């Protein structure tokens, strides 16, 4: 039993990891919103970067867009059976 097994296979510990993950997300988004108001950096290249929690929103949007759009393209067009080239 290595460290990871103990962590992942015990439901109590796994639930704890999940809570830490969501807490981490909240901290990351919060830091993005709050910190620029405390330390004025002013180093963004575009105005949209100053939108509150820009990184978090764009990251989430990108992730969803990539999965949905790619799967659509794949299902409709690109994905073939594994023996496609052998037939």
């Amino acid at each position, binding site marked *: 039993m*290595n*460290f*990871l*097994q103990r962590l*992942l296979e015990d439901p109590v510990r796994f639930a704890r990891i999940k809570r830490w*993950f969501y807490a*981490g*997300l909240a901290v*990351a*988004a919060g*830091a*993005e919103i709050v*910190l*620029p108001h405390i*330390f004025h*950096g002013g*180093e*963004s*290249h*575009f105005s*949209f*970067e100053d939108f509150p*929690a*820009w*990184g*978090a*929103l*764009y*990251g*989430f949007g*990108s*992730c*969803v*867009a*990539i*999965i949905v*759009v*790619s*799967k659509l*393209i*794949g299902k409709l*067009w*690109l*994905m*073939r*059976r*594994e023996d*496609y*080239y052998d037939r």
Partner: protein
Amino acid sequence: MTVEWLHPGLLLILGAWLLPFFSGRVKRVAMLILPAAALIDCWLMEPGTYGVMSFLGQELVFGRVDRLSLIFSYVFSLMGFLGMLYALHVEDDSQHMAALTYVGAALGVTFAGDFLSLYVFWELMAISSSLLVWLRREPSAVAAGFRYLLVHIFGGLILLAGIVLHWSETGSLAFGDMGAFSGGMAWALILVAFLLNAAVPPLGAWLPDAYPEATITGAVFMTAFTTKSAIYVLIRGYAGTEILVWLGAVMAVYGVVYAVLENDARRLLAYHIISQVGYMVCGVGIGTALATNGATAHAFAHILYKALLFMGAGAVLQSTGLRKLSEMGGLYKTMPLTLGLYMIGAFAISAVPLFSGFVSKSMVVAAAGETHREVVFLMLTLASAGTFLHTGLKLPYYMFFGKDSGRRGHEPPRNMLVAMGLAAVACVLIGVFPGLLYQHLPNPVDFLPYTLQHITSTLGMLGFTALGFFLLLKHLDPEPTISLDTDWFYRRGSADVLALVRGPLARLEFGFVGESYEFVIRRPVLGVANFLRHLDSRVVDSAIVGVGRSTQSFSQVLKTMVSGNAQHYGLIMAAGILGLLALAIFLQ
């Protein structure tokens, strides 16, 4: 070639031939000493021009040493060392020789100051890397190796055509900034050849086709040299070419899209090579000091973390024999070290703070920002989220966690773990101390990766990408499929063209073209020939026969006179003389 300058590529290419003469421990030491010596050779090199030879009235420069070629030579020879260490347990001399030749040829391209020597090393790279695919010695690998070689020979011929055209137009073989010839035919041909090696779509399908078919250790070498030497020559010749900005940005997203669909672990990583090289191509296209620095730094960091990722996937393949994500799962129990080392590479490629990608990729993205290219900036950032999604989440999730496949692997041999460990150390070192890398970049660096905004927005982006991943997890299950790419044109397209030629085209030829030929050409020709034959037999022949017959009858007449009897001739002569005398008397 001067004695005080030793070409590190030549050292590896010639040194490779020594390996078969050694065995056991000596051979393993030699395998490590050769790339280590090349690394030290590059490290001790001073900028300047070395190894100049005269050929066909042109100067061939084998040693153009400046800041740009030096930093690429460092990472190439370092990667050669890590790759040989990873392959140390493999008992196959031909693989090691091919790998060392491949590294040496990449160093040859790096130091080439003229097109001709560049071309020679360029082709040597293609041939030696094909061997790394073939030497897996399986039918699918042999087929993929042939496709790979044919594509690269095609690219090499385009390069040669461009070089010859450039030579005839300018009278010079020197390889430098091609900006002055922008738009010309030679400029375009050479650019296309470079883009083919950089795996820019639609010329890049050879990469995900061939790399997953290579040997476990050979694939680690292949990730490093072909595309990154192409980035080097692009920086050298084509910095600031606008089309590269867009090709690079599209490429970064393209690789990510294909990675979603991919089921083969090493092919997924191969599509991420395309995506990452997209950042570099984009940086070359932007062409500012920051952008070319970014392309160079990203190439450096990329070689190390991508090798680490391929080493991790290779370790899983080696110990379980599995290459498809849909068949893996649950390996964290038996391969925790491999998992940990793989994750360092995954964090580096995903540009997590304190890992190498964070300090290199951001230079290219910042260069896009500085030059006010919103769309490119957004595309590169999106691809960045996609990179973390696949390399940092999807691949490790399905490979090491996920549904337990019941397969039990074991950690790879120690030399593989040490190679992975060293690559991981390099990824972290560059991330924590970016100055180590920045001080060797071609242009002076005025860039701070660790700003508050950069760190917070990166962490936010990565964290919420992970959230999106876990929410959509059930849609991401790998499926046992393959994806169409532009290699379709030469894998299926050519077969379909052949079927078209053999079926309908052949019938059309026989039925229509053949019949028309019968009426338009064959019959008139036969008719004319028939007429000429008649003419010949009737007129020409009768004339000749007539001449023969009259000659014959004339000779029948003559025959009575020309008897061959001397008394007869004497009688006729006497009669003649008497006749003449009578005539003379009579006429007087």
